[in-house]
């Protein structure tokens, strides 16, 4: 990782050996990466201000994702500890998404292209579509956030619909593509 003026005294990331972190990415500070996680090219995960970050097993972080945290503000993770950013298991953080701590993203969440989660909790199993903003709210588990939605008051968050059968079609497609790419990365890194 490129050094920042303060990065010399940062903790090093802890990456499970079964995780795949592409070399064309930027992972610095106290980031705990679980088993089978994919960190794609072009991502920036910097626990240099807010920390630590946790990324649960089986989660994928796609190309162009930025994870960062404010120095102030923490969320409580599922293990009861405090984190700047907690991302649960089997979540899918898709291309260009921004997860800015303090932020909690629960197990099996899907965060669509270019959506932002900042100072918020997104409960387990939520589907967030594309270009949405989720800020200063707590979204209960299993909710659906449409493309382009701006959810910045708790009232809006409470009115969100539940995920319905069919909503996960897009999410499933993106996840499948990711599996294909993961296979590609494995091949590329074996060749290298």
């Amino acid at each position, binding site marked *: 990782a490129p050094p920042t003026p303060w990065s010399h005294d940062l903790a090093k990331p802890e990456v499970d050996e079964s995780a795949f972190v592409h070399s064309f990415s930027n992972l610095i500070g106290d980031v705990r990466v679980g088993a089978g996680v994919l960190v794609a090219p*072009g991502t*920036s995960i910097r626990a240099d201000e807010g920390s630590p970050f946790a990324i649960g097993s089986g989660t994928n972080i796609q*190309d162009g994702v930025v994870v960062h945290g404010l120095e102030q503000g923490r969320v409580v993770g599922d293990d009861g500890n405090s984190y700047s950013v907690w991302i649960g298991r089997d979540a899918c953080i898709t*291309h260009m998404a921004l997860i800015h701590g303090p932020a909690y993203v629960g197990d099996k969440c899907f965060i669509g292209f*270019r959506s932002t989660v900042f100072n918020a909790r997104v409960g387990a199993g939520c589907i967030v579509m*594309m270009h949405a903003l989720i800020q200063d709210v707590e979204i209960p588990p299993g909710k659906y956030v449409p493309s382009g939605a701006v959810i910045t008051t708790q009232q809006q968050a409470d009115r969100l619909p539940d995920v319905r059968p069919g909503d996960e079609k897009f999410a499933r497609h993106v996840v499948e593509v990711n599996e294909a790419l993961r296979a590609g990365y494995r091949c590329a890194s074996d060749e290298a």
Partner: protein
Amino acid sequence: MLLPSLPTVIRRDACICGDVTVSDRATISPGAVLQAAPGSRIVIGDGACIGAGAVLSACGGTIAIETGAMLGAGVLVFGWGTIGKYACIGTAATIYQTDVAATVAIAAGQIFGDPTLPNSNPAQPPA
């Protein structure tokens, strides 16, 4: 309009993996990611420009960026689709499994091809 977050350029080079063909007259900016899943392709034509931190992720077909087409910084092209000749895709726009006609200009931050949105087809070219 909410302008989505702009790309952070963390690398000076670009990341190109899979079956990707880039014309030697095309320009790829720092931090761009061009990746084709197995069985899919990316083709970048003459005079095309790919902006900083743009992501092209081909799967289930071909992503073709035709002659003179421009993708602004942080543009995302996902799945398959042709960006026609001289089209101009504004910064931080998202193109999902859809084609963009030649010479069309798309404003920054727009989404095209989202199956859940009405009017999610790119504009037609100027007459």
